[in-house]
């Protein structure tokens, strides 16, 4: 989780300046790939959220159109959703028995 936050804050801090520091396309595909990997993990647990793959698709489309900022935003959201879904899967696996109404 710490890594994700770090990554997200880095992305948030650099959107406009990134082009000067590195090849502009390099950061965005990384984010999309991470989102996709996390989505797959959530899916394997059976807990993927409804809109995550649509977000990733839109992030890819935005990148193809050169809208890097928009792409980053969508991919970060997809990544956050997937991380939340994975956390949900784990907490549900641990706690579902306590959810049975008496």
């Amino acid at each position, binding site marked *: 989780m710490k890594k994700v936050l770090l990554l997200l804050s880095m992305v948030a801090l650099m959107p406009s300046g990134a082009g000067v520091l590195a090849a502009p396309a390099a950061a965005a595909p990384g984010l999309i790939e991470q989102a996709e990997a996390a989505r797959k993990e959530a*899916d394997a647990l*059976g*807990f*993927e*959220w*409804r*809109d*995550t*793959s649509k977000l990733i698709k839109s992030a890819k489309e935005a990148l193809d159109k050169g809208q890097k900022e928009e792409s980053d935003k969508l991919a970060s959201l997809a990544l956050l*959703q997937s991380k939340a879904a994975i956390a*949900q899967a784990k907490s*549900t*696996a641990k706690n*579902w*028995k306590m*959810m*049975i*109404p*008496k």
Partner: protein
Amino acid sequence: MKKTIQRRLLTGALVLMTALVTKPAHAVNYQALVDADVKKFQGYFRKEFPDVKFEDYGDGVYALDEDARKQWKEMEEFPPYELDVEAGKALFNKPFANGKSLASCFPNGGAVRGNYPYFDEKRKQVVTLEMAINECRVANGEKPYPGFKGDLAKVSAYMAYISRGQKIDVKVKSAAAYKAYMKGKAFFYGKRGQLNMSCSGCHMEYAGRHLRAEIMSPALGHTTHFPVFRSKWGEIGTLHKRYEGCNDNIGAKPFEEQSEEYRDLEFFQTIMSNGLKFNGPAARK
């Protein structure tokens, strides 16, 4: 508080010890574990709705709400699924390319709703009626029907119709069956999706209450009456289509028709309705 916990732990330990002493591990009585769950589950609704008769739970939300029930009774006078049952009958008897038909796969003229779902001990998985219909087609060189609605729902509707009144009595006889049951149970009580909600949250704790224009049905009786002709769909659909909709509504990615997840969920839900009668197909708003 502390005392009750201690007492519980003690009884727990005692139960465990007796189980260990009197029975080897392979002789666990899974049916008894499941029966205890059924009793608790049905007891929950008896306590919540003391005036509702047990057999009325087969009528879904209309068991709880008098006004909705009146409207529904009127709807059932000219059942919107009548044409689907007719179409399902024709499909059931229509010869495949090899001369056989769905009718060749099922005994009792297809009036077998009461035999499904069941746990197939050889294949170690839950078999639902819709799955059996498609397996019959594939075994005879035909393509399976696509999921959720259409011909699959129509054939299922016909078979449910000629099976009306058969009792729900799903058994859990093995460790493997119990595992599938527990998966369905975890699905039912587990929170998921963007709204972080469980089936039980809406269909137990909120049963009978309003959610926007709808009143939430009790989970007891959820699987008696499918497939359902739903006015909102404008057509007949399977139980798994309904599962898909409820998953989608809470922002969870739905599973496929006849996925293992939905079959296990159907297995669990049907067991919770043990003792009710199959009464499908049905009309819903």
